[in-house]
């Protein structure tokens, strides 16, 4: 589905270039959820932004390719890229309030995303938007549609973002830490929602996260990154069950044991 190979990106500073990621390669097969994990500065964000052509002005991909649908996204021209983004690849960002336009009504934003890829009457836009909002379990979709982003709670806003990202039923969804900005008790709802949407359409998911638990429970494959390089790739069960790279081992060891297991041990021991 998506094949990334040898991806290398540099950031220009005043004096020289700084390599942010180097020689990144991995696959996202059809119908598979891939977790891209790493700590701060490991280059997860730069990797997906290189793939989607969303690097800031100072960043530049200097090597490698990202093959999707038979098109190399790195070398694709602007209009090719535009017709893929949103239609063939959906993107869910970290902070829902950052993602939504604060000044346009939610309905207008649905209309813009729909009309980016097909023509549709105003009534149809409304019908599609309502249906989509219902499918992501937004309560009171009519009211939400009429309203603005700031009137929503964090979880609801992220549901709206997911609905927008999946409006055109893209076969691949890239999610960048989609629950980090949300309250703890809401995070799993959103993960379950994304998971449900992905498996319902037999889609692929590239899930960027720093939470190994999320990868263990929601992904089938994992790519571990460290300071701009991939250190380990494989099936989640294999990598987490028997990590090969010392960094992966270290990462897994650093995760505190689940609170219930430790506490339960102490209770029974006492």
């Amino acid at each position, binding site marked *: 589905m998506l094949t990334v190979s040898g991806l290398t990106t540099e950031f220009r500073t005043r004096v020289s270039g700084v390599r942010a990621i180097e020689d990144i390669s991995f696959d996202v097969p059809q119908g598979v959820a891939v977790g891209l994990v790493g700590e701060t500065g490991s280059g997860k964000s730069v990797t997906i932004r290189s793939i989607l052509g969303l690097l800031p002005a100072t960043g530049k991909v200097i090597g490698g390719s990202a093959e999707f649908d038979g098109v190399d996204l790195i070398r694709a021209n602007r209009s090719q890229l535009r017709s893929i983004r949103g239609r063939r690849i959906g993107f869910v960002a970290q*902070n829902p309030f950052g993602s939504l336009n604060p000044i346009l009504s939610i309905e207008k934003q649905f209309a813009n*995303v729909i009309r*980016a890829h097909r023509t549709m009457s105003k009534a149809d836009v409304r019908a599609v938007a309502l249906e989509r909002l219902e499918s992501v379990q937004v309560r009171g979709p009519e009211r939400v549609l009429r309203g603005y982003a700031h009137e929503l709670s964090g979880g609801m806003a992220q549901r709206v973002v997911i609905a927008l990202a999946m409006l055109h039923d893209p076969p691949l969804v890239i999610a960048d830490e989609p629950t980090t900005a949300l309250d703890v008790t809401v995070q799993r709802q959103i993960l379950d929602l994304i998971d449900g949407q992905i498996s319902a359409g037999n889609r692929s998911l590239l899930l960027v996260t720093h939470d190994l638990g999320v990868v263990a429970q929601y992904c089938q494959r994992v790519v571990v990154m460290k300071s701009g390089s991939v250190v380990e790739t494989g099936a989640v069960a294999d990598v987490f069950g028997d990590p090969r790279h010392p960094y992966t081992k270290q990462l897994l060891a650093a995760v505190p044991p689940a609170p219930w297991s430790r506490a339960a041990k102490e209770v029974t021991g006492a």
Partner: protein
Amino acid sequence: MTTLVAPEARRSWAKRHPALRYALVRVAIVPISLFVLGSVSFVLVFFIPGNPAVTILGDFATPEQVARVNAQLGLDQPLWDRYLTYWSHLLQGDLGTSFFTNEPVLSDIGKFLPNTIELILLSLLIAVGLGLLIGVTGAYFARRWPDRLLGGVTSALQSVPDFFLALVGIYVFFFLLGWAPAPIGRLPIDAGTDHPPFLIFGSLFRGDFSTFGAALGHAALPVLALGLVYSAYFAKTARGSMGTALTTPQVEFARACGLRERTVVRYAFLASRTTVITYIAILFGSLLGGASIVERVFNWRGMGQWALEGVLKVDVPVIQGFVITAGLMTLTLFLLLDLVVLALDPRVSYE
């Protein structure tokens, strides 16, 4: 029964429409500001050293002459009386008469203010149009060559005083090339200085195209001088706010959804709209006085030039009249600004 219900209903109304309530409060403040403005302009006179009568009559006036003029001006009255008289005149729309020309200040303002407003509006048109173009283009091509080039242009324009740019314009376009008319007013010298207010807009509206053309030709240089210099300030603001807006996650998400670049830029512009509109209001305010020197260079006969000449001669009623008019205009402008911002941004909720 109804009297019991009414306050409750009103409170809930205010709760449901905080924006409307804010707007009403904002409008209600205006009379207070006006009172402060009027009083400030009265007090201003006491900071002026010396005796206005001496200023009028010259240093060699006899004490009797001074006393007579003082009585004429009402300056022999107690302060409190003068303050009340001042307000009663002001409320009747009487701003006094010039010490030197004996013209009623109000009629002077009626004559000169429209000229200034035309100059400011046309200059703003250039400044905003060009400034937005430069700023948005620069922000879009951030840190690439168009941005660097336009940044250089902006810095250069910002480094020229408007009156100097006007002089260079006169030399090049009037003296060397002969494209522009002589800098002697709003119309050719044989048309005299008596013309209806709002010369350009008025003649266009009436369909008097020969006057319109002549007036526009005379306006070209002053408008360009002001418009170019102020466009630099505008470009800098637009570049800054658009530059920030274009790097927000919101714009990234819009791109990731496959929106056209045109729509993406529009998203960013929506986000920086308030800054841009605020800056237009600020520029209008500063042009009100800032245009005065250029007006003088072109003998534009605008309010700025009139006030400047009044100031240089210590013509107290003229200074007061200018303070009140300019204050009134900026007050109105900022009121409008606040209301426009309120109407444009769904997030603004004033509590």
